[in-house]
């Protein structure tokens, strides 16, 4: 049951780049992707900054190869998942038992919103092709069909921890000898539904978010997709390049405190992180970098920070929230941040937590504010915590 699961490839698209390499370059250059809303058509355009992928739906359609008019989430997912599979160099997926485990928070909602304008006043109106892919699973299947994956397909939706859970589940399917190769991660496009939902909760910052800052005011929403290709030892042995990273730990716990808010002491976060360490057989001191959930809301950062303090005090690893670059990409963040965590291991770097001015008074540590290079990190912990108390942590380790 403890057979290793290797990372054979990565793919990402976010506000800071349309590929893994482009994202890495932006992370190194401290080039955040947050800005004025250009592609989402919302009345909040001038008040709420967002981290959009800098491509129109038409441009995404060209890049993904999907027909125009399909959900933006499917386009983002296809681009990142195709990159991951190409990057893995596996060749024909049909030679292995291959799965696609994806995640998203609202499926094809970006199109359903348009449908509802006509449907609401008259239920016989609205173009059905705008609602046919409303389901979360429908978006996954568009991508799976593009990848030619049939053996096992599913979708997880646990709010902001969705794609951490899909990577976790994919690894278990390999460990249980059900699959050999799994493309796992998630995708989410910005939608008015989500933007307005978060706005009613009053947790959106009208300026660029400042995670783990004493004066943080909320999060910025983002969009994108991130996937990893998980492979068994048997598949890894056939690859031209030996995988350099494995998924060594994972844990899913529930905060059981409130539908949207985290408990003040971060119970769920603590259980997820400590459980992942236990699964990996590691001590807190073994972790070289924590890719924080770090949304920038008052509530998340103090809960996550308190849990980190409890687990790591007095020796804290380097930490940062890359949501300062990409915004909070919801169902995609666990996938995108898994890709960033793997790149941190491969490149010996820690990304800066941008815009951090005043460290939080209640915490005895401060995330990195500048790019750190040339560090020998052996293990990275990646946190994804969400609505419904769903908390998941993953640990990526050098082979």
């Amino acid at each position, binding site marked *: *049951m403890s057979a290793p699961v290797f990372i054979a490839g990565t793919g990402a698209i976010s506000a800071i780049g349309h590929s893994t390499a482009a994202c890495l370059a932006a992370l190194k250059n401290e080039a955040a992707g947050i800005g004025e809303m250009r592609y989402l058509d919302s009345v909040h355009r001038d008040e709420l900054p967002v981290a959009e992928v800098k491509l129109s739906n038409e441009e995404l359609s060209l890049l993904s190869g999907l027909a125009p008019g399909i959900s933006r989430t499917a386009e983002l997912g296809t681009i990142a998942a195709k990159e991951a599979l190409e990057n893995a160099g596996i060749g024909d997926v049909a030679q292995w038992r291959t799965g696609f485990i994806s995640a998203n928070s609202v*499926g094809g909602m970006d199109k359903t919103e348009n449908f509802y304008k006509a449907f609401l006043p008259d239920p016989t109106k609205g173009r059905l092709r705008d*609602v046919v892919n409303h389901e979360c699973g429908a978006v996954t*299947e568009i991508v799976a069909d593009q990848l030619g994956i049939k053996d096992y*397909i*599913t979708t997880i939706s646990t709010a902001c921890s969705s794609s951490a859970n899909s990577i976790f589940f994919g690894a278990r399917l390999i460990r249980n000898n059900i699959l050999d190769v799994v493309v796992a991660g998630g995708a989410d496009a910005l939608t008015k539904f989500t933007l307005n939902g978060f706005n009613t909760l009053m947790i959106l910052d009208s300026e660029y978010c400042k995670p783990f800052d004493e004066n943080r005011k909320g999060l910025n929403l983002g969009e994108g997709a991130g996937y990893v290709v998980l492979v068994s030892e048997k598949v890894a042995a056939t690859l031209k390049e030996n995988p350099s990273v494995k998924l060594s730990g994972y844990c899913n716990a529930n905060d059981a405190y409130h539908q949207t808010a985290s408990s003040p002491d971060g119970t769920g976060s603590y259980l997820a992180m400590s459980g992942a360490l236990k699964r990996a057989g590691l001590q807190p001191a073994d972790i070289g970098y924590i890719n924080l959930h770090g949304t920038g809301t008052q509530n998340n950062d103090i809960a996550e920070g308190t849990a980190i303090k409890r687990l790591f005090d007095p020796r804290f690893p380097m930490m940062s929230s890359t949501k300062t670059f990409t915004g909070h990409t919801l169902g995609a963040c666990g996938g995108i941040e898994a890709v960033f965590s793997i790149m941190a291991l491969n490149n010996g770097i820690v990304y800066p937590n941008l815009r951090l001015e005043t460290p939080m008074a209640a915490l005895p540590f401060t995330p990195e504010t500048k790019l750190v290079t040339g560090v020998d990190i052996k293990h990275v912990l990646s946190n994804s915590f*969400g609505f419904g108390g769903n908390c998941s942590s993953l640990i990526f380790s050098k082979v």
Partner: protein
Amino acid sequence: MYIRATGNISPQESFGHGPLLETPVDHRGNRLNCIEPDYKEFIDVKLIRRMSRIIKMGVAAASECLREATLKNPDAIVTGTAYGCLEDTGIFLGRMVEQQETLLAPTAFIQSTHNTIGAQIALQLQCNNYNNAFVHRGFSFESALLDAMLLLKEGDAQHVLVGAIDEITNASHAILTRMGLYRHDNTASLHLLTTPQKGTVAGEGAAFFVLANAASATDYARLDALHTFYKPAGKEAIEKEIGRFLLNTGVGLNDIDLIIDGRNGDARHDATFNELEAGLFKDIPSAGFKHLCGEYPTASAFALWLATRIIKDEQIPAVLNVAKQPAALKKILVYNNHLNSHHSLLLVSAC
């Protein structure tokens, strides 16, 4: 794996462990709504007012299931839902469109996420353990079930609460009707499967199970195996998948006492089942179940409940119209198929 307990809210009198489908409910039209219990017994009155129908159904079905299992804190809670919390999604979406993104209240949005039911169950139990939500169309329940079975196999859990929830709303029913899924006549639901034509009827339900890795004196049945396959090319591919499933589980066709199949009265959809009934499954008694619960992506959860109860009661209810009563009821194969693209096989055995 052992099925320790069940809780099932459906369009039939299935809640509360009474006699199995003794007085079947014959619905009229193309929408089979659940018969809902009095929620006060399961949920705080203040919460009942705030919760949408699907959340109440899910929490109550889960509570009843845990009560039967005398289990306070399961080691994991895993849910499957294809459509999620449609009512709350529709409310927030509708107001957002009507009010042009202004003056919106958060409640419907908060309760619209697909993990709401699993989260509410965890909240009610103060359960900090593993919690996951699968949202993959006709595989939503099967994925949740696989996760639950793996958790037991891996030794990370002794008891898992696993279930599926889907609801019909006016909007979803209108949209799916326009897509051509449902009949337009005043079908009597109990005759759905004997009057094949174009279209089926909409269903919904909330069915939960406690799965355990060790046997107990009060188990309903054993869940031996699960297999799903996606978009099979045709009849040969389907037969190959079924054959491989049986081979992998070490079970022969003649070991199976009853097949519960996912026919839904839509002639286009039922062709697959008819071919199997005349071919591979020729000598095995079989029965459909969707005349009882309607068609919806997680209907297989109702079928698992039905198989579980039949094994426990050692009797097939008359409403299943099984022509040839099997000599014994030790093994039931559930073969469901949602919209011809999502196929699943479940093998349930007597303990």
